[in-house]
Every structure is written in structure tokens, then in C-alpha cells.
């Protein structure tokens, strides 16, 4: 996963200071983004967060009927951290500023996770992680098998140590790296600035909205074979952009409907908008966000 891809997905989220993708169960950093100015070591923090999740999962294994950790929230003096399991291979840690409202942080995680997972799925490195050339530990058993294992709970694994009973994991194909090392990687394509749409005939607003900070709400469009933001139809992109940036997100589409007079049923199928309707919606989104140009 390219640093630039991660950055484009998450850097716009205020109060988010870092995202760490950790390979499980060996707790090694796979990919990371850190906001400039953050002094902590992504490798160390990634390992710590991975171990935290793994220890909890080991503990849960001992409880009949309880499944693996789906999401954990960790509050420490310096940060609010939300950990999410992503399939069998990863735990993703979102490091927010201290004092960030938990609900807001969870909402941002919920919005961003799908997009990160989609990039991970497309990542050839990730595919290799999922199907390594060297023998990997067996995939996590189905729930019924997990229950069967509970009769013989695994010993608690000390923090920092790999579970002795499990076969060794292959090293991650992309070893974690500090910012300088990551920047030197030859396979990192230069970050492509999202296309700035030409301005319409609206009022003379004075700024450009930032690139989307979050995409990927679950919805009908998620089921489409479209794989990246650029490939999405422009109507879908526009509404996703609105969702990501509008204040009072829950009411954003209602506001567009009221401003334009276009029915909600039509706005929920944004790719069926005519050119004129699309222009109305675009102008409405500009008005709601208070910007002259939309960068979606």
C-alpha cells in the first residue's frame, strides 16, 4: 500500500495523527501514515497495538462463544486509539489526538475503513501476505472450530512474544519503515493531486474544498465492481464527497434536496442525474460547503 494512497484517504481527517496497518499475528508494521510533526515511532507503536489486539484475542479464545476482537478503543494520556480487525491478516490502528470525542473518532474509522481495506485488497503485496510463498499458519478456524479449541485454551502469550504453538509467520513482504525510508522506496508513485473541477457560475466563493477525507459508506454502490475513487461515476463521487465534508452529515442530502427541489429518491441514485440536475447538485454542494471549487 503506497504511502500516498494512505495519505490521500486519511490526511484530511482532523485530529487524526496516524494510521498503522499491522500484519497479524506477528504484529509487524505493514504500512503507515503519520501526520507531520508526530514524534512517535510508527514501528514501535504498530508492534504494540498489534500485540494488544493479539493478547486480547488470545484471552477471548478462552471464553466459550466469544469471537475475536472486532474493534477496540484505547484511551491513553497522549492519544485516543481505535483498533480495527481487517480480515485475517491485519489490524488497523487509528491514532487520534488526545481529547478527540470517541463517537466522532469511531465515525471516522467507520467511514475510512472500507476505503483502506479496498486499497489493501488491491495491493499486490497484500495478496502475497494472504498467500505467502512460504508456509503460513493455517487460517483462523470457523467459529465452531474456535469453540472446539476452547476446551484446550492456549496459554496466554506474553506481550512481545510470538505464540509458541503456532508455526512461524513469514516476514511481511513490505517491512515497516520510518518516514525517510518509506520516502526513498522506488515503487512509490508521486502523489496525484485530485482533479479540480472547473468552477461553475455560482457565487464568488473563496476557497477550494479539500480532497475527500473519507469514503466508503456501505451502500448499493459498494457492491459495484468499481475499485477506486477515480473510476466511480461522477454522481457517486459527488455525493460521497458531500458525505465526507458536510457538517451535520446526516442531514446533508436533505439539504441538497431542499435547495435544489430534486427528490431524495433521485439524489440517492446520483449517477442517474441529468447534466442539468448534476449541475444543480454540484452548486448545492458548493453552497453547503462554502467553497468555490469542489475537489472530488
Amino acid at each position, binding site marked *: 500500500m503506497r504511502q500516498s494512497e494512505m495519505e490521500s484517504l486519511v490526511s484530511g481527517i482532523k485530529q487524526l495523527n496516524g494510521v498503522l496497518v499491522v500484519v497479524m499475528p506477528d504484529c509487524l508494521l505493514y504500512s503507515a501514515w503519520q501526520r507531520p510533526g508526530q514524534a512517535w515511532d510508527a514501528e514501535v507503536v504498530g508492534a504494540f497495538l498489534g500485540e494488544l489486539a493479539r493478547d486480547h484475542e488470545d484471552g477471548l479464545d478462552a471464553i466459550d462463544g466469544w469471537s475475536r476482537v472486532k474493534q477496540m478503543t484505547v484511551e491513553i494520556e497522549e492519544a485516543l486509539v481505535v483498533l480495527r480487525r481487517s480480515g485475517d491478516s491485519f489490524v488497523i490502528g487509528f491514532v487520534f489526538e488526545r481529547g478527540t*470525542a*470517541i*463517537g*466522532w*473518532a*469511531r*465515525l471516522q474509522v467507520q467511514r475510512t475503513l472500507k476505503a483502506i481495506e479496498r486499497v489493501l485488497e488491491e495491493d499486490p503485496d497484500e495478496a502475497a501476505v494472504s498467500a505467502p510463498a512460504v508456509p503460513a499458519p493455517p487460517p483462523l478456524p470457523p467459529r465452531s472450530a474456535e469453540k472446539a479449541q476452547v476446551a484446550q485454551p492456549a496459554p496466554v502469550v506474553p506481550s512481545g512474544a510470538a505464540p509458541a504453538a503456532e508455526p512461524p509467520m513469514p516476514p511481511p513482504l513490505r517491512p515497516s519503515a520510518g518516514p525517510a525510508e518509506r520516502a526513498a522506496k522506488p515503487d512509490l508513485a508521486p502523489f496525484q493531486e485530485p482533479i479540480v473541477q472547473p468552477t461553475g457560475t455560482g*457565487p464568488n*466563493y*473563496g*476557497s477550494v474544498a479539500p480532497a475527500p477525507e473519507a469514503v466508503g459508506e456501505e451502500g448499493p454502490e459498494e457492491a459495484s465492481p468499481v475499485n477506486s475513487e477515480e473510476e466511480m461515476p461522477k454522481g457517486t463521487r459527488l455525493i460521497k464527497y458531500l458525505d465526507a*465534508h458536510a*457538517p*451535520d*452529515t*446526516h*442531514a446533508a442530502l*436533505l*439539504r441538497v*434536496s*431542499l*435547495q435544489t*427541489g430534486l*427528490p*431524495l429518491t433521485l439524489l440517492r441514485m446520483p449517477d442517474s442525474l441529468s447534466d442539468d440536475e448534476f449541475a444543480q447538485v454540484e452548486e448545492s454542494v458548493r453552497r453547503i*460547503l*462554502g*467553497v468555490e471549487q469542489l475537489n472530488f
Partner: protein
Amino acid sequence: MLSLINDNRSHLDQHDFQFVAQSQTVYHCHHFNLFWDQTVDDALGNERGIAVRTKAAYEAASQFLNALISAMPPTTPEERLDIASSLFSAMGHGNLEFQVTPNGGKAIGYNLHYGLAWREKYGAHIKRHHPADAVAAGYVAAATEAAFGLPLGSIECNETICIAMGSERCEFEVHQSGETNPAFGVTKEDVMGVIPKSFPGLHEEHISGVAAGLRKFLADVSGDKRGLIEAFGVMVTQQWSNYYNFTVNRTLDIISEEKPDAIEVAKELFRECGHQCGFHTFGGIMLSPEWEALVEPLNGDPLQIINGSLAISRALGFGHWSLEAYEPEKLLVLRSPATYESVYRKAAYPVDDNGCCYLYQGAALAMMQLAHRVNWKEKPTLSNSLYLELRQGVPWRVEESHCVAAGNSMCRVVVE
């Protein structure tokens, strides 16, 4: 100046309506106020939205100021302007400085409720391109007329610089309109003429007792040096209900004519204002130390939250909101002999088939949310982020089954 308000304050006991002189007043928080004005502007466009909101504020303030000034011993124009400025601050709207003559002039606004609250809530994320203080603009026009004894409608005012647009203060231009306009809005007598007979609800004694205590407490609440009331985690204003009623009805009238397909969306957004009010204001009051001292500590019982919210709604002047039925997690039915929304509508409009109590509907839904989806024992912060979280996947729907404005003998909402 609080004493002038309180000396002219009256309370309609059986209906939980409040009046200052001839004007019905209510308390609302900045979340409600901002979303309300935003909905008007979304519906009508910024320019026409400002015009409607300014006119609403002008009419409400004119009725209010002229009645109060008439009740006082004779005063000079300067004294009247001072009184107008002090009243504005006491009601939590910020500070106004008048530099006007009978021919016009200007006014300066400091820490005005709408502009400041907008900047605080949204300013870090959004750039605003139109002024926010139509309430102040209408008030300045009304105060100028009242100060100099000018014909009603002869003065216009518009905001030219606004704190919400990045300025340090707000400025208003005041000039002659070249017209007169006798419109005055719904009065106390109008309200008295249309309200149905009142009735009690479940847990009436408890709710009435709490409401009475809160009302007494609110009577002593006044703007600080900045002219703002910051309490219960929100910024509060005491405001003329005619402002809200004029704006919502005028907006829906226009939408019905020009964008009829959008009428239900507009109503949904006005309901959303009520939901914000319920969440932020009811919730904020119940989480406050004052609540614990005046009423009781929260124990996490949903019924405690429902009853508390009903008491608060009464103390804020929304009406005699009463509990008809409640089933945990499933059903909440409220009834009220009237609401401040329905009495205006009934007094000013012909009876029609539709309910008009958008605040009532939205706040009832919020009460169900507060009762069941907030962990009160943890003393949560009722932040905007928590609000957005709760707004996702709301498991209940609200409907207004009866409304005085639709010819019924009560206003009744069902959340299920």
C-alpha cells in the same frame, strides 16, 4: 434589565406558555437556532431567507419593544435605545450599540448569538458568505422605530459585516424604507383565543413540580457581560416564538408554491431542529449540576429522562407537554393541549389537514433517543460527534397524529 422583563412576564399555568408583555417567548439553544435559520435559507436561498428572517425578527421585536416601552414612564429616544440594547443582551442575543437617528445610521454588534455561535460551531470547517444575524437586524430596525416613535415599517436594517464571515464584530446599516407596515404578528390575546382546555398527563405531579422549579431558575438567567447566556453546555436565547412561527410558516408557504415536491423535506429538516433541541438542550440541562441540585441525580432509568424532558419543555415555554403512554424501547406518546407552534398556526391560518408542530415531533424523537441510547451513568459529553453517532440508525419514527392547527383538541405525537 432582567427586572423589566420579569415585571412584564406572565405565565399561562395550565398551558406552560410564557409571555413578556404581549409577546410569547421561549428559550432555545444555538444548535436549534442555527439549524432553523439554515433550513429557511436552504429552502429560500440566502438572500430571500435573510429577508424572511429579518422581517420575522422585526415584527416580533416591534411588538415586544413597543409593549414594554408603553408600560414604562415616558423616556427619551436615547433611553429607549439603551433599554433596547440592554433587553437584547439580557435575553442572550449579544451586545448592540446604536448609532442611529430618525433618518437611519448604523449599529454595531458584539458577540451576537447567531454569528458567534455559527463561528464556534462551524467556522473552523466552513467559510460563510452571508451574514447570520437577521434577528439582530430586525431588532435594530424595530428598536430605532420604537426609540423615535416612527411609523411601523418605516425603518429597514441589514447586516453588512458579520462575525460569522470572519469579522471581529457585526455591523448593520439602518435606513428609511419609504413605507409603513402595520403588521404586528400574533399576540397574547390571539393565543388566549385559540387554546383548548388543558389536561394532565401521567406523572403529572412530579413533572409539574420539576417544571415549576426550573421556570423559577430560568427567570433569573440573564446574559453575561457579553450579552450571552452560556448554560448547560449550550448558548441559550430567550426569544419571541413569533420569530420561529413566522419563519417556518412563511417558508413552507413559499415552498408549497415554488417547490411543492420539497415540502416534506423542508418539514423533515424543521423536525431535525427539534431533535437537535431535545438532544442538546434537554440533555444538557439534565446533565448539569443545577439539575442534580434542583431535581435529582440521574439513575439511568429511561422514564426519568422522559419525565425530565417533559418538565424542561414546559419550563422553556414549549407548552404543556404531557405523557400519555410509554413502553420502554417501543413506544412514547405525548399529548399537549397546544404547543407554541400550533397556537400561532391556528391564530394566523385557516385550519388545514396537517400538523405543524415540528419542534414537538423532533424533540419527542430525541427524548426516546436520550432515554435509551445515552449512558447517563457515565455522564457523557453531549458533543456534536455523539449527536451524529446517535443520528445514524434511529430505530424509531415519529408522527403527529393530532394537532390543534388541524382542528383537533390537542397536539399529540407518537414515537414508535
